[in-house]
């Protein structure tokens, strides 16, 4: 017997399948993509797919950027350069619009974010430059491998509400990377601080490279780095992770703009679709079966990662 939420979920899954399958059908033959669908069909299809991705991203607990690049890169006829550029814009716009409420609500910590964002935004420039220097097939293979790695990380990573941090390290203490989390329900004030800051900076250097290289956003990596490695509370880690993206993706986005890899006809419908979808997703948070959607999204990511890998290897074009 289907419950109303299960029925809604099935309809959502069907719509997602159709919106992904339709552009692919037109794009399978490069010549067909020119003649089968008029130019205006592509931004509409892109908007529809991103709208659905935005809806499911929220209950699945993932950022839009990490869904956008492998799925749009795998199933739309755009060159990977433009998909990565649009992916960065999607992640940047989402992070910027979430930033003010995260900061004023105390769910993101500015002083925790700034040193990490500085390292990651510098390395994201390096990542973006590497992405343009490498042959597309190599980037495609690396993207596939990375996405499959993200699926494993997301499926297996643990989270800790309040990690045990016996004492802050000298660097985090000097930089004031601490704060007070006020619990919304009880009003209880929980002081927190972080440790392993040098290791955290090293990890964020790598995260920045991946963000710039693939245009993925990097919330999937920021969150475990802040929460499990550095010991920030889960809520602070989640908010700060999103806020860091607003700085990291800014510098990488400029590399893509300078290289001509930001095409408004691809980037803007994607940004609008993803942001509207995320607003709907946030409202449906209590209705949609989050655990099931998370499994669906992980399955979708695994499929898109495999598609990117096989496309890069020339086995599925």
């Amino acid at each position: 017997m289907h419950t109303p939420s299960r029925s809604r979920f099935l309809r959502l899954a069907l719509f997602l399948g159709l919106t992904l399958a339709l552009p692919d059908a037109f794009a399978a033959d490069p010549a067909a993509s020119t003649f089968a669908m008029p130019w205006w069909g592509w931004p509409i299809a892109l908007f529809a797919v991103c709208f659905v991705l935005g809806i499911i991203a929220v209950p699945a607990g993932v950022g839009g950027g990490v869904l956008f690049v492998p799925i749009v890169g795998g199933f739309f006829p755009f060159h990977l350069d433009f998909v990565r550029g649009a992916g960065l814009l999607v992640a940047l716009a989402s992070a910027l619009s979430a930033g003010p409420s995260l900061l004023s609500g105390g769910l993101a910590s500015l002083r925790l974010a700034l040193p990490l964002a500085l390292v990651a935004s510098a390395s994201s420039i390096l990542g973006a430059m590497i992405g343009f220097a490498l042959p597309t097939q190599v980037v495609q293979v690396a993207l596939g491998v990375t996405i499959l790695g993200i699926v494993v990380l997301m499926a297996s990573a643990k989270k800790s509400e309040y990690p045990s941090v016996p004492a802050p390290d000298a660097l985090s203490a000097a930089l004031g990377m601490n704060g007070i989390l006020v619990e919304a329900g009880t009003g209880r004030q929980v002081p927190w601080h972080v440790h392993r800051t040098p290791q955290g900076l090293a990890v964020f250097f790598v995260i920045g490279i991946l963000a710039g290289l693939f245009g993925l956003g990097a919330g999937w990596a920021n969150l475990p780095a802040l929460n499990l490695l550095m010991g920030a509370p889960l809520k602070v880690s989640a908010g700060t992770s999103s806020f860091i993206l607003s700085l990291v993706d800014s510098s990488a986005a400029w590399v893509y703009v300078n290289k001509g890899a930001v095409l408004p006809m691809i980037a803007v419908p994607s940004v609008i679709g993803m942001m509207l979808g995320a607003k709907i997703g946030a409202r449906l948070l209590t209705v949609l079966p989050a655990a099931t959607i998370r499994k669906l999204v992980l399955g979708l990511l695994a499929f898109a990662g495999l598609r990117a890998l096989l496309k890069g290897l020339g086995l599925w074009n």
Partner: protein
Amino acid sequence: MELNDKGLGRDQLAYGRVLAVITHTGLAALVILFGVYVLGLLDPHVAHHRLPDLWKLPAGQFLEATGIAPGWGWTALLHRADILTLVGIAALAFASVPCLAAIMPIYWRARRMSLFVICALEIGVIVLAASGLVTGGH
């Protein structure tokens, strides 16, 4: 640095306020400029019907095929709708700079020189990326 009853410092609140204004303005500009472009209210540099043949190309070849110079070359074509839309995108990519600039005086007055320097360096990184000097944009 003093904290309010939510445990938030003045730096965090100031950053959030500036970010809200700039992000809302930038997103609104992006949507309006894209509307002008997609509805054909202003001629684009690259005709709409040519896009399906061009967006399959790598970015470098796209620039060559459309006669757009890399780096800041696009600013010479701001009278074209597709290029004008990039202004909205550039506004979002530059949004963090005024926010960082807004909190630097707070850190200066509080004698938090390490945070002041980090903000200055972050602005430097974004401006360097935007300049195209290290990215081969020029």
